[in-house]
Structures are given as structure tokens and as C-alpha cells.
């Protein structure tokens, strides 16, 4: 048997292989479920679907989580296309979220915003604009620092971006525990609670994202849908996108073509960070609170989404949906008392599905050929 590298594969064939991989993954999941738990595998699958798309609230929540994961995946993609190993999305999103939260929190304490005679729309316009700018700047700064050091002193971007995650995380933990003499962030130093949630005060709901179409989740979903298209166009059809691709392939070729490599690295990472900051802003605006688990590892999951989709923004929509569906579905399976399973079982199912999806890429790049020639006698 031989392993042969495929030279170009028709897209429909690649998708067929991926489809088969998912079906096989589900089949293996079903078999494992039957053997280990003696449960009907279809009831487990049904629970997963129920948990993610079972009713309109769950569907909205799933859609929102897909949107956020997709947004972060989009943010890291320009850097990856440039072969800049940015694993700092976690920190960049947190930095953006922190900046937005600070705006929302302190605005709610100012006399102007406490004045009940000024309409909420005016207050929102001011606060949300501030949040937006602050979070984009914070995210961009978190992206800029590693890129600047990389382009100046050729520091290792992987380590640098990783460290920046911890800096952001500790800052968030610090501010949550921060006992501001006048306005303490939290009563016990661990939980902040919903910002501007006191109905008696004039600052009620200041900075909250407006509900669109009857759900607070619709606005971020729309924004990220737009972002997906914009980023797709940016990477594929813009001069910047072209420069990113050339720098990613070969820095020497880029220099030869008159592309300023350092400049492109910094510009692209600032963009990456800024988009992450924007996602942080959406998280705080939608959740209306700040916790240190706000991003919850999605900055890392996004790296996987981006790679699974081969850096194609449209492909990332599917990849992000798949991962969120599995995570939420698995959680649901684990939490249902009638099934009597714990979270580890859900993790096993997730692992099996991921194994097949990532493993099938091998069969897209290579094919196995059985040798037709048997050893013949003389």
C-alpha cells in the first residue's frame, strides 16, 4: 500500500470526504455510546440537538456563541495568513472587553448619566461610542506590542502573544477585585454583577446593547456577518490582503517586490488586535458584565477554527458552528439527569468528532493506493 500525495483535488470531492468523515464520526460515537452507557445513541444525539437548537432561546444563544467564535477566528486569520503565529486572541479580546467594561462602569456613576431627564438614547450614543473606541484601541495595543517587538528585534511572537494573554487576564482579575473607595467593582471581590442594572437610577441600562428584533443576540450576529464578508474581501481582493499573502509565503520575495515587511506585520497585527477588541466590546455590551471567564478559551479555539477552514472566512462559519454545536450539545448531554452522564462523556464525543474531522484532511491531501503488482516468480 502506498501513500500518494494528491495533486489538486476537486472541491466537491474534498467536501464529500469531509461529509463522510462526519458521518463516520457520528457512527463511532453511536457505537461507543451503546457499548459504554447502554443508552440509545439516538437519544444522546437528540439531546445534543435539543440543547443547541431545541427552542428559540437556545437557538439564539447558539447563534450568538457561533458569531463570537467566528469573530475571533476572523480576527486571528490575517496574522496566520502572514505566518505570524498569533495565539494572543484570548488576551486581545479580554483587553477590549476590559476597556469597554471600564467605560460602561464609570459612565454609570457620572452625574450626567445619572440625570433621569436625559434620554437613554443620547447616553447610549455617547457611552457606546466610547466603549467601541476604547476597546478597539485596547485590542489593537495588545496586537501592536508583539508585532512591534517582532519587527524590531525579531522576538518570538508565539511566546509574546501568549504572555500578553496572562497580562490581560491578571488585569481583568485585578479590576474585578479592585476596591475603588467610592465605587467598588464588586461586593466580594469576585463577582461584578450586571452593570447599570439598578432600575431606580438614571443610569439604568446605559451602555447595554439595544435589543434588535426582540433579542439582544441579533445585533452582534449581524455585525459579525458583515465582518465576515468584509474580511473575506479584504483578504482576497485588497492590496493589503495581497501583501499579507506575499509576506506569509516569503519575506524575501516581499522585500524584492518593494513591500515593507515590518510595516505589514505591524499593520496586520494591529488589525487583528482591533477586531479582537471589537469582539470584546460586543461581549461586554451583550452580557453587560465582566468576568475573568468571559472569553473562556475561545481565543484558542479560534485558532483551530481558522486552521480547519484553511483561513477561508466562509469556511469558518461552518467550522465555528460545528465546534459550538458540539460544545453546547455535549454540555447538554452531561447536564441531563435522565441520561446520568457526566461532562467527561461529552468530552469523549467531542474528541471523537474532532479526530475524524481533522483526520480526514489527511485523505484530502493524500490518497492510499493498493499496489496492483504482486511479486512474480522469475
Amino acid at each position, binding site marked *: 500500500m502506498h501513500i500518494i500525495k494528491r495533486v*489538486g483535488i476537486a472541491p466537491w470531492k474534498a467536501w464529500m470526504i469531509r461529509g463522510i468523515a462526519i458521518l463516520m464520526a457520528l457512527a463511532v460515537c453511536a457505537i461507543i455510546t451503546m457499548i459504554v452507557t447502554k443508552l440509545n445513541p439516538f437519544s444522546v444525539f437528540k439531546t445534543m440537538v435539543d440543547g443547541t437548537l431545541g427552542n428559540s432561546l437556545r437557538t439564539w444563544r447558539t447563534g450568538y456563541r457561533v458569531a463570537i467564535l467566528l469573530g475571533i477566528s476572523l480576527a486571528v486569520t490575517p496574522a496566520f495568513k502572514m505566518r505570524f503565529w498569533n495565539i494572543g486572541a484570548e488576551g486581545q479580546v479580554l483587553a477590549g472587553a476590559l476597556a469597554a467594561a471600564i467605560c460602561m462602569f464609570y459612565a454609570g456613576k457620572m452625574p450626567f448619566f445619572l440625570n433621569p431627564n436625559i434620554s437613554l438614547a443620547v447616553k447610549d450614543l455617547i457611552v457606546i461610542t466610547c466603549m467601541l473606541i476604547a476597546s478597539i484601541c485596547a485590542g489593537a495595543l495588545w496586537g501592536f506590542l508583539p508585532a512591534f517587538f517582532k519587527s524590531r528585534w525579531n522576538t518570538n511572537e508565539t511566546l509574546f502573544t501568549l504572555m500578553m494573554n496572562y497580562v490581560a487576564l491578571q488585569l481583568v482579575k485585578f479590576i474585578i477585585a479592585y476596591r475603588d473607595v467610592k465605587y467598588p467593582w464588586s461586593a466580594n471581590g469576585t463577582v461584578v454583577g450586571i452593570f447599570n442594572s439598578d432600575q431606580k437610577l438614571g443610569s439604568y441600562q446605559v451602555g447595554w446593547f439595544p435589543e434588535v428584533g426582540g433579542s439582544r443576540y441579533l445585533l452582534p450576529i449581524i455585525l459579525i456577518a458583515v465582518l465576515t464578508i468584509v474580511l473575506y474581501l479584504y483578504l482576497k481582493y485588497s492590496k493589503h*490582503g495581497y501583501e499579507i499573502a506575499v509576506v506569509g509565503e516569503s519575506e524575501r520575495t516581499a522585500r524584492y517586490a518593494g513591500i515593507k515587511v515590518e510595516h505589514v506585520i505591524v499593520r496586520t497585527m494591529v488589525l487583528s488586535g482591533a477586531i479582537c477588541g471589537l469582539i470584546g466590546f460586543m461581549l461586554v455590551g451583550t452580557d453587560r458584565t465582566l468576568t475573568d471567564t468571559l472569553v473562556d478559551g475561545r481565543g484558542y479555539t479560534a485558532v483551530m477554527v481558522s486552521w480547519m477552514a484553511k483561513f477561508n472566512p466562509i469556511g469558518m462559519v461552518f467550522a465555528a458552528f460545528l465546534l459550538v454545536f458540539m460544545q453546547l450539545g455535549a454540555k447538554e448531554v452531561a447536564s441531563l439527569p435522565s441520561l446520568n452522564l457526566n461532562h467527561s462523556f461529552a468530552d469523549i464525543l467531542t474528541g471523537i468528532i474532532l479526530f475524524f474531522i481533522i483526520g480526514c484532511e489527511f485523505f484530502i491531501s493524500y490518497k492510499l493506493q493498493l499496489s496492483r503488482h504482486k*511479486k512474480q516468480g522469475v
Partner: protein
Amino acid sequence: MEGITKRFGSVVANRSIHLELHEGEILSLLGENGSGKTTLMNMLSGIYYPDEGQIYIHDKPVKIASPKDAFDNGIGMIHQHFKLVDIFTATENIVLGLKNEGRLNLKQASKRIKEISDKYGFDIDPNQKVYDMSVSQKQTVEIIKVLYRGADILILDEPTAVLTPQETDKLFTVMRNMQKDGKSLIIITHKLHEVLEVSDRVAILRKGEYIGDVLTKDANQQSLTDMMVGHAVSLNIDRPQAKELKERLRVEHLTVKDIEGVKRLNDVSFTANAGEVLGIAGIAGSGQRELLEAIAGLQPIEPESRIVYTDPSTGKEQVLNGMDPLKIIRSGVLLSFVPEDRFGMGLVGSMTITQNVMLRSYRRGKGPMLDRKFPKKLAEKIVNDLEVVTPNVDQIPLRRLSGGNVQKVLVGREIEQSPTVLMTAYAVRGLDINTSYTIYNLLTDQKMKGVAVIYVGEDLDVLLELCDRILVLCGGRVSGIVDGRSITKEEIGLMMTKVGGGA
């Protein structure tokens, strides 16, 4: 090899090839780029597996499904690109991957390597680290590696492409020694005079098919070329004289230091004129690359250097010192550069022809978006004009095209910029005769259009036929600037090894 067929997708790389190699013979495998020579040899050495056909060794059918099978059958291949571990010594590289009797005995291995070297006339120090070696020494290690594993059949894929004439001679001596020892050798090369010099028999492939074989003593350059290309080809380079010569580029006291502070170029001065081809000759690594890159703004230069460009329309002089490539483009200097390292510098292998053609001109047009119509048209024009063989211009990655077609895209793009200075480094390295002549003619056309052409080459015969003047570099210094029409190969050869020439 009998009835060997290999397909890649819908492309047939080899169609029912029948090839014979006799014991103690040197066989040349000849063919244009993309004619399937390397594919065929890869099947012999276990890298590919044939779709159809059977390989026999000493009349016995064998199955070669992996490089290990190939070694077990005494077949060893020396690839164009060496596969050595830089920080290991020659010995360590040679024994690497061998599974044998328990403990690794490097001393004994060194001894055997020494024996092999002495037997065939290799010149090598088994304890030298690979990073300290010249290209030719690395090649020697590769060859010994194969012999160490007991190969009787050696395949050399374009071994001379990276060697100087002297190193090539040495290699040929070694090859003949191996032949005398009863080993069979297959050599792939594009250089016809080498084919005639070293081999006993020549086998010719064209477009994946086996055309035939001739005994070397019955062949000459013209007959081989005709068989290879399929029709008669003229092997002369026209060298018309341009009407007037005008100074276009003047380089004064150019000095370039590398990171370690070693002078790679030392006080180089010359002028390149519009309407002439200025050849640059020298042993590999004498500063050719640094010279072109310094002019193109890709190498930092020392303060005493001056690079002066004369604008053809206004006659104004402009100093290019310290400009990066973008500044040079912006200041209106139309400088084209075909670098030596195609995929490392001139092109992007994973991108399509259109995207590669854009590399120089993507800034055209206002706004942040790319203009895609113009590059596509340009790509199609290059493909048509230079007969680039490709299924399409905007889908297939460039890396999948054969070397000659890739080079045509690169040269075509640089010429389409309508340059006033055209610099080329080893523009025909690894190309077949037909493509090489296409490129020589293109360069001459450019010269007649009033472009200052700088041609860095390694084949002295070509330099003497193509260039009006030849600058000879030796260890980063100008050894002399001579007239291309009156100088002889021997004189240049002397100047290459010693500044100023002379015995």
C-alpha cells in the same frame, strides 16, 4: 524498465517508457523541462510508484515501493537538492538512518568512507561539518552516502548545475572511476557538451515518452537537440550591435559587507550602457548575487559606494544609494531584476500566474482594492508570447509548473515592466535548450530596444556569444572588464581565479 507509466491526476508524466541500463555504463538522460526525466528516476529510486509497468534488475522483476527497496536493490539517487543535516559531520550524515549492528561506530565508518574516497578519487574530510562545506563537497557527501549503502546503480539529477567548470571535471573523473569499477550511472543534465563528454549512451525523453537512444560517439549537439525538441533548432545566438550606447547605470566603489562584516564586494566600479548586454562572469559566490541585490536596493551598501542612474528621457542623474525597492519604483527608475532564487525571492510558489505577475504592479490603480483585470490580461499575454505551458493562469499554483515555464513567467513579468535596466541572475539555470534560447533572444530584443541588460551567467560559452562586454568578478573584486567579441574562454577562466588574470 519496461512499459512504465505514471500519471499525476489527468497528466501523464511518463507513458510506457522502456529504458535499459547496462552494467558499467554511463547513460545520459536527456529531455526538455517537464519531459518526465525526474519522474522516471524517482520511480527507480522508490519515491514514486509506477501506475503500470515493471522494473527488472539483472533480468529479475523487482518491486521498488520505497527508497529502502531501492537501496536493497542497489539503486541510489543523488538529488538536485541535497538532504543533509548541517550541524553533522560528513560521516554522521552518511551513516544517518542506517540500521546496523547495535552500537554506532563512527571511527569505523570514517575508515570505510576514507576507503571509498580513495578508491574513486573523492576529496573529502569525513570529520568536516556540513555547514563548512562548499556545494561541491556537499554533493560528494551525497554520492558517498549512496556508495556507502552499497549502490551499484547511481542516478545523478543535474549534478553539474551548481558546480564550476573545474568541479565538474573532478566529478566526471570520479564518475569514470566508478564506471571502471563496474557501477552503472545515469546522469540527468541539460548541458549537451557534458553529455557528449561523459556518457557512453544517451536516452532521450520528450513529453513523457521515450524517443530513443543513441551511442554518444554517434551524436553531436545539433542531433541531440533535434531529437529532444522534435524539430531542428538553431543553436546560434544573434548578437547585433546597437546603434548607440548611452550610459544608463554607473556603479562606483561599490562595497558590500555581510552580517559578519566580511566584504562580499570590494570597490566594484563599472558602467552599464543602454543598448548592450553586460555579462558578469565569476566562480559561484564571487559576489554576483550581492552586486545585483545592491543595485536593486536589497543589500545595505557601504558609504563610499555610489550607484548612479541616468534617466533616458530627461538625461538627469539620480543616486540610488540607500533606496529600498519601493523608493526605487516610486522615483520612476524602471529597474527589472530576475533573481537567482526563483521561489525564494522572485516568485510565490503557492500563488497563480496572475497573482505572480501582479507582484510588481499590484499597487496600480487607486483605492484599497486590487485591479484584477489588468494582471490577468498581462498573464495571458506572457503565457501566449513565451509559450508557457499551463492549463490556466488563475487557478493552478505556479509551483506545479515545470522549471522552464516558471522561469518564463518570471522573465516575462520583468520584461513586461518595460524596464530601462534589466538584471538577470542565472536566467537559464536548469532550463532546457529551447527555453534557454528563447530567453537569450528576449534579452537581445531588450538590448536592441535600448535597455541596459546585465546578465549574470555561469556558462562561459553563452557569455561569450551573448554579451557585448563581460565583467569578471573574483572574490568580490573586479578582475577585469573585457570585450565579449574578442576575448577567449581561457582568458576569462584565468581572470575568474585570479584578479587581473595572468598566470
